[in-house]
């Protein structure tokens, strides 16, 4: 794969209630597919404490949603902006986006590889 054709992977960890908004925004931007999973995590936000039958316990891990998408390098900036805008609530715990290089992509049905496989 050449420099121009390089594929990037975006992993966005967002608040669960923002998923619909982010999905709509990405689709409008032309991103055609994504994988979504339910995860738990915390950043500097840490967790919160809950009470059950008079005893307190700390919940460190908060539910989040992880969106994974693959795109051509030139689309990364736009996608990042779109996600950031849609997933932001302005409050702590909004999440993070990880941008990673992807070695290759394969479409299982046809065997296509590279950018055309996205």
């Amino acid at each position, binding site marked *: 794969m050449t420099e121009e054709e390089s594929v990037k992977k975006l992993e966005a960890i967002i608040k669960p209630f923002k998923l619909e908004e982010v999905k709509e925004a990405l689709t409008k931007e032309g991103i055609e597919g994504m994988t979504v999973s339910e995860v738990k995590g915390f950043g500097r936000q840490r967790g919160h404490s809950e009470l*059950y*039958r*008079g*005893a*307190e*316990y700390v919940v*460190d891990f908060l539910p989040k949603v992880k969106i994974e998408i693959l795109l051509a390098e030139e689309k990364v900036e736009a996608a990042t902006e779109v996600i950031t805008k849609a997933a932001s609530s302005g409050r702590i715990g909004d999440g993070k986006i990880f941008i990673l290089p992807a070695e290759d992509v394969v479409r299982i049905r046809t065997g296509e590889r590279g950018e055309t496989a996205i």
Partner: protein
Amino acid sequence: MAWKKSTIRGCALGAALLLPATAFAEDTGVSQGVFVANNVWMMLCTALVFIMHLGFASVETGLTRAKNTTNILFKNVFVICSGLLTYYICGFNLMYPGDFNGYFGFAGFGLDPGADGNTALYADGGYTYWTDFIFQGMFAATCATIVSGAVAERIKLSAFMIFALIFVAIIYPIAGSWKWGGGWLDAMGFYDFAGSTLVHSVGGWGALVGAWMLGGRLGKFGPDGRLTPIPGSNMPLAAIGVFLLWLGWFGFNGGSVLSADPELTSLVLVTTCLAAAAGGLGAMLSYNLVSTKPDLSMALNGILAGLVGVTAGADVVTPMSAILIGAIAGCLVVGSVIFFDRIRIDDPVGAISVHLTCGIWGTLAVGIFSTNPDHSFLTQLIGVGAYAAFTLTCVLVVFGILNATIGIRVPEEDEVEGLDLSEHGMHAYDLHTSGTSLDAPLGLGRS
């Protein structure tokens, strides 16, 4: 013309009902019609008490973790099945031995209605022998179910089954004979209308010993008195369970009138429901002293506490007294749950607090609130002490022997993995997939 058997029977019944006076009406003063009505009410109450098993199954499932759901349900299923059968074999006749020395009697194995068993002569026209057996049989199984909640999530299934068999077949009926069977406590004037003592506190003592001897669930009690809650897996089921139990109590208390007497049965339903309501509110209000965020499971326990509390005297207290009894029970149960946590006795569903603490309170409350001048606080106290001594001794012996022989607690890895997998080799949910979804709903790696 040949008549169908059913038609002939129907005509006979109709004729009997229409006759204003029959042979046994002269003996008992109870007409066939009233006898039928009484018996129908008692049979309906039998079915309502049976519903309590649905209630227990739901509550226990809801307040424990999903990885142990199959196990707890299996215990509930075992208890009702074995309980009814042992009650048939020996329990009923241990509990109602007829004429006996007041401490221990046995009317023989199996059932025998005798010549008058299914006539109005049997129980003053209140119900038949068969109804008597099956109604009381439903009660018997509930006391072992009380224990099942307190020992949940760590007791060895085989140990529990052996314990439950002995508890329902022998311990419960002998204890019950002292009052309902016409034994020494009955002769002394001790009063327990529907079982605050005989069913709930007896079950509660068993629960206390079991929970204490087992020790807390892994991760619950830490060093330096640290307490980590282990939340239940299904609040809807817990709530539905409590409502089912409340529904069952219509029969538990309503049927303990032992006839369809309009005044008594209707009074009992009123006192029962008012106490349940007051228990719920009492628990809500007193928990508010602990936290301003209301705890649903405490409110649910509060309802049960009110029900258990009024059960000893539902037919001898005024509605206002019932409200007081229920409200105090609701407050007691909150304090009790927190207390047992503090002394490191792990009770996943609050069974000890609901049934023992409030069972004792209900028993004593008869001595305080009863409108019957023959009831006294001292007699009630003696009764509490007697049942405590007897049940504690028996249960300590049984659990002690079990612990020394087969052991009563599952190994650590089994408890961590979940009893569904280790004891039953199956899950309660997602039966066809692997077990990755069964971790505690709270937090990663916390189980």
